[in-house]
């Protein structure tokens, strides 16, 4: 298959050069002007003002929300401070109550201890006095017994001793007893 160069050149010459593509067609130019005018006037007169309005509304809404958020935050901080104050007061009240309780308990304890000591001392004193009295009573009884016994012995001895010996013996006995 040979390529016929002359045939191809002739075909190329016959075909369009494509220069028409570089020249604007009047009808397309008119359509382009009309179409672009539609776009331009729509954007200029409606779209951009609408966009600006939307953006302004959004900006003011955002500003309002930020302001509201700041107010809410301030309110929350205030509430928190009040709450902290309440908690702080409650803590001090609790501490006071605890201190008072401790003090009362301590006082009660001291009173009870003092009372117990007092009772113990009174019991001891009473026991001592009872003991002393018992001791005195026993001593007295003993002395009486001893006296009776001495008298009885002395009577028995006296019956067998002279009067002087009896007297000496009695004195000596009494002296030893003392």
């Amino acid at each position, binding site marked *: 298959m040979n390529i016929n160069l002359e045939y191809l050149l002739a075909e190329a010459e016959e*075909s369009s050069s*494509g220069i028409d593509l570089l020249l604007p067609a009047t009808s*397309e130019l008119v359509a*382009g002007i*009309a179409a672009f005018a539609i*776009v*331009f006037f729509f*954007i200029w007169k409606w779209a*951009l003002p609408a966009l600006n309005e939307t953006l302004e*509304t959004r900006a003011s809404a955002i500003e309002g929300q930020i302001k509201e958020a700041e107010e809410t935050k301030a309110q929350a901080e205030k509430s928190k401070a009040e709450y902290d104050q309440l908690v702080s007061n409650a803590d001090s009240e609790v501490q006071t109550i605890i201190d008072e309780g401790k003090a009362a308990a301590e006082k009660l304890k001291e009173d009870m201890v003092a009372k117990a000591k007092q009772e113990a001392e009174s019991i001891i004193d009473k026991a001592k006095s009872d003991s002393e009295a018992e001791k005195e009573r026993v001593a007295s009884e003993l002395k009486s017994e001893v006296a009776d016994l001495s008298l009885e012995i002395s009577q028995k001895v006296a019956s067998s001793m002279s009067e002087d010996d009896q007297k000496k013996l009695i004195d000596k006995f009494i002296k030893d007893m003392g």
Partner: protein
Amino acid sequence: MITAAETCDFINEVVCKPANVNELFEFSNFAGTEISRTEILIVLAAVIPVVLVFFGLRKKSVVPGKLQSVVESIFTFVKDEIALGVIGRGGEKFTPYLISIFLFILVGNLFEVAPLINFPVTSRMALPLFLSLITYFIFVFVGIKEEGFGYISHLVWPPGVPIALKPLVGVIELVSVLLVRPFSLAVRLFANLVAGHVMLSLLLASAYFFIVQPGGADYILAKVPVGIAWFTLGLGIYGFELIVSILQAYIFTLLSAVYIQTSLHPEH
């Protein structure tokens, strides 16, 4: 192009008769009217952004939905990054124009990759030329308004240049600013979209040609894989063209802002 491929006798001809390249860009008028598909698409490139923006912004919700977020993002991007970011002080009054050309060109470009349309209206010279001429008139008007006759005299006799070079630099500046700028702006957009459209058409038409028109059982094993390869490459270029469409809309808008800025703030 597919029609041309279907009529091609590729068995007996080494090179098929090339289709007229204009067929890729020119469509016959609708029956009984003077309106072509291209003109309908141009109007559609205006109606689609208008409708989307309308439905995106009509509720003016404080908490935006998805469409509203997209529209707001595009608007604020063009306003903040291009109008105010590039032009600077005084740039806000050009925001409607910059948003308009960005949306119009973007939708016109995206027609290239839109299913069932697959034709970027910006690949027709009328649109890029018209839009670049608007930018041209704006920046020349702004320059004359800001500096008066000084705008032209500064171009012809640029300050801060050695006097021996002033005539040469002046001619270069004059031609560059007043003649090359509008055409380069138009041709950049036009050429990118034409190239993309031609490339996509060639790749996908070739895929169709190799896969659907195998020319008999003997050729199936040889041609179908080639067709699949073309189709795969075409899909890759499809994604690439999607990026190009967005990028070219951005570049056109950005350069328009740069040109306006040079007129509005010549001291920079």
